């Protein structure tokens, strides 16, 4: 296989490993805040690796730019969602129980 394809495949596998680690974190961590931590940090890094792996085999510079934009937008969205969920969970704990 072409070395670029090999490197791309390896990076995709590393990204997948990060996603699996993040999912394990969601399943095993005890409360909302630690689970959010696993979800956002591991998944964003995993997505970054996947994006780099795909970018190595992209057809054009425009494709690489689009992949990078996907990663940046996902980063922004998940960071904001994480903050909002953590804030709501904190308020929910303080006011005594969240709704089902």
């Amino acid at each position, binding site marked *: 296989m072409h070395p670029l394809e090999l490197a791309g495949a390896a990076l995709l596998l590393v990204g997948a490993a990060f996603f699996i680690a993040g999912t394990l974190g969601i399943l095993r961590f005890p409360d909302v805040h630690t689970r959010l931590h696993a979800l956002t940090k591991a998944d964003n890094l995993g997505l970054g690796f996947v994006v780099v792996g795909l970018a190595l085999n992209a057809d054009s510079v425009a494709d690489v730019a689009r992949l990078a*934009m996907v990663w940046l937008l996902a980063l*922004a*969205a998940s960071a904001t969602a994480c903050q909002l969920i953590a*804030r*709501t969970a904190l*308020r929910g704990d303080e006011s005594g*129980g969240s*709704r*089902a």
Partner: protein
Amino acid sequence: MRVAAPVPDHLLDGLIAVTMLAMAWRLMTDPNLYRAIVLFVALGLFLAISWTRLAAPDIALADAAIGAGLTGVLLLDAIGHWDPSSTSMVVRRAELLQSVLLRVAPPRLSRVPAMLAVGGLAAVLVVSVGELPVSEGLRQVAHVNLGDSGVENPVTAVLLNYRGYDTWLEVVVLLLALLCVLVLRRSATLTGPEMPPFSPALSALARVAVPVALVIAGYVYAQGAHSPGGAFQAGAVIAAALVLLSLAGIPSLGLLRPVASRIAAVAAPAAFLAAIALTTTDGAVLEYRGTTAKAAIYLLEAAVAVGTAVTLLALFAASAPGRADEPGARPS
């Protein structure tokens, strides 16, 4: 992308199919409604993946944006309204029927009529699909006339030229749905009440994401002529941007006069009516070719994009529960 795929296609598709079925089962049997809705959104994304596997990226885009994204938001708003302590007439009737069935037959047996009906219908469908005549359909005709249709993307040609009449009816259905929601919620305006800013993080995200979303929407709209994309997808992206602004408490359409949003909501059906009026000859409705077709398609697509965006925003604005109380302190 020229990466060799090590996983055979059937394995990947089989995994996707099994995951979707498991997810659908899980979300139907989950007593926690919030979790069920999250699973529904995830299922919508898997649907988008399967559309891509079926080589239908236009539908994948629309399904991910509207089917998974916006519908998920509307469902979350719905359970925000729902007060579990009150029992409505519908719920009471369903419980009565269930209790009658349980009295007549033991619990396991009461499912048999439903299983027979579903099994029978499934059998009929499988047999009918097996007996369908083998035919190319109209694919050949569609491709042959693509040069005349004004665009290079066959999906756009079908949606806005060959079957423009059906698209007109679709946008009218969308408008009817909006009217029903407005009537049921007794909304005074299309854009909903003005909300206070919810969180600085959300405002920051809105300030970054909305301009990007609008550029992406314009790109998707322009690409629809020769790549996957088009009016509905662009409208969905604009709607997402407007919903984000609304969630962040930043007034967007509310700054315009109410008549402007109303005009935007009826823009798509009105544009189609104008097109019908201008292009009807004896024997042909909505027939246009060549350069006229190109112009007509671009204009109709613009109307559909704007109309879809405003309609989806209005659907969201009509169903959002009032945020008078702080999050987390809502009575349950």
